[in-house]
């Protein structure tokens, strides 16, 4: 199986000149679950936006064996499912169904296939009855689930989740954790929720100031108080 994600010496500056990534390297095997942790402004979201070409910095990014370039952005975007932190950014259509169908529809699939995939994706997140609902009436937890469905419908093999449990009440958070546990895809998730990391992600990558400062087994890092403190992390 090809390596799911391979990033080599990635540098990125925002147009206003402010640097965000300074030589990030990262390798994720297919089927792995990796947590990306670090303080706000460490470059986690910026890195994630590189994984399907929304941002393009200097350095190499390979996804599922393909080097990212302008020629294959479409395929890469179908492979990497990016789920944004605020589900109100992810769910931009009037109804839930239209949002879940947006990805497959814009991949150019036939309408039958679009329908099939959308229904399957809604089922996978336990929201099959929500198709005709209007997004703004839903709870944050429901919106987060549907946001995940919007990339499952594209048949994404690699899920990249930005803070999947932020802003959720305990019950909704538990629901999302159970949902993620059951998904077969390769997962990279940025989060501040170290309990979630301990439960779901065997590997942990710590970023700080635009660099990867530690990469290894979660159990070891969570026991290393000095490391956690050095990067503003705290285990409750």
């Amino acid at each position, binding site marked *: 199986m090809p390596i799911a994600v391979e990033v080599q010496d990635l540098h990125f500056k925002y147009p206003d000149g402010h640097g965000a990534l300074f030589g990030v390297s990262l390798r994720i095997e297919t089927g792995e679950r990796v947590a990306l942790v670090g303080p706000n402004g460490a470059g986690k979201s910026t890195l994630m936006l590189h994984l399907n070409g929304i941002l393009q910095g200097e350095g190499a990014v390979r996804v599922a064996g393909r080097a990212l370039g302008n020629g294959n952005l479409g395929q890469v975007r179908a492979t990497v499912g990016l789920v944004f932190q605020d589900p109100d950014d992810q769910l931009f259509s009037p109804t839930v169904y239209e949002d879940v169908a947006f990805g497959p529809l814009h991949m*150019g699939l036939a309408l039958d296939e679009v329908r099939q995939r959308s229904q399957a994706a809604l089922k996978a997140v336990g929201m099959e009855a929500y198709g005709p609902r209007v997004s703004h009436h839903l709870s944050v937890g429901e919106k987060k689930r549907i946001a995940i469905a919007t990339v499952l419908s594209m048949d994404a093999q690699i899920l990249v989740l930005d803070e999947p449990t932020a802003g959720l009440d305990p019950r909704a958070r538990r629901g999302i954790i159970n949902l993620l546990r059951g998904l077969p895809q390769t997962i990279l998730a940025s989060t501040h929720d170290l309990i979630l990391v301990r439960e779901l992600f065997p590997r942990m990558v710590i970023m700080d100031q635009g660099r990867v400062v530690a990469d290894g087994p979660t159990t070891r890092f969570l026991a290393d108080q000095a490391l956690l403190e050095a990067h503003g992390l705290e285990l409750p």
Partner: protein
Amino acid sequence: MLHIDLADQYRRGSSRVHRLDPRVKLAGAVLFIVVASALPAGAWGAYGLLFAATLVVAALTGLGAGFALKRSFVALPFALAAISLPFTVAGRPLAQFGPLVVSVEGTVRFASILIKSWLSVQMAIVMTFTTAFPDLLWGLRALRLPPALVAIVSFMYRYLFVLADEALRLMRARASRSGAGAPGRRAGGSLWWRGKVAGGMVGNLTLRAFERSERIHASMTARGFQGEIRMLATPVLTDRDWNALVGWVTFLAMTALIGFVF
């Protein structure tokens, strides 16, 4: 004030009117309004028929024959714009107030405008209350409105609530910091200052809207969007839809005929 509480006008239901295709409802409402608008002044018989039609349609919605009637006075303040007609249109005198003469013709014209406006609002209300807005949107798309325009309206509808919530939070924050200095003293500073505070809130909201649109654009791009809006299939009109449309057009044509001839 904020429309938030009114935001979803749609009333769930499964009446004959609810189940009609949104294209039929849109076309039906617009045709009704066109006929009401085109009728000559003082065509009381035709106005009566149109009013009867609004009552019948309202009753068919299952929301009660009077529901549109109750909400139909929203346009009334605008009547002020035409209030001078009874005095300014020349014609047979009806009454005299000092130097002002009320003419029959002017009064008829004024009353006709009000009635037409009031009937049109009722039909628009019936349409809005029986059609979910997302359905209305694909109805517009199916009626060949430019897809980009419909998409803009659909984004607007989606984020109306998100941004209205943000506006509400800003106003609450302003209210919670706008105490009066002493009893009897009015809160807030000069007109200039008050305007500036409100303007600052609007500016703040502009930035939030901009940043939100950037994030949404990224999330659309991540799902394969390249600027071309694609749409799901639209259902075909059923026999029921055609019957309703033809029946409605026939009725309106008859009404118009009556209005013009008599």
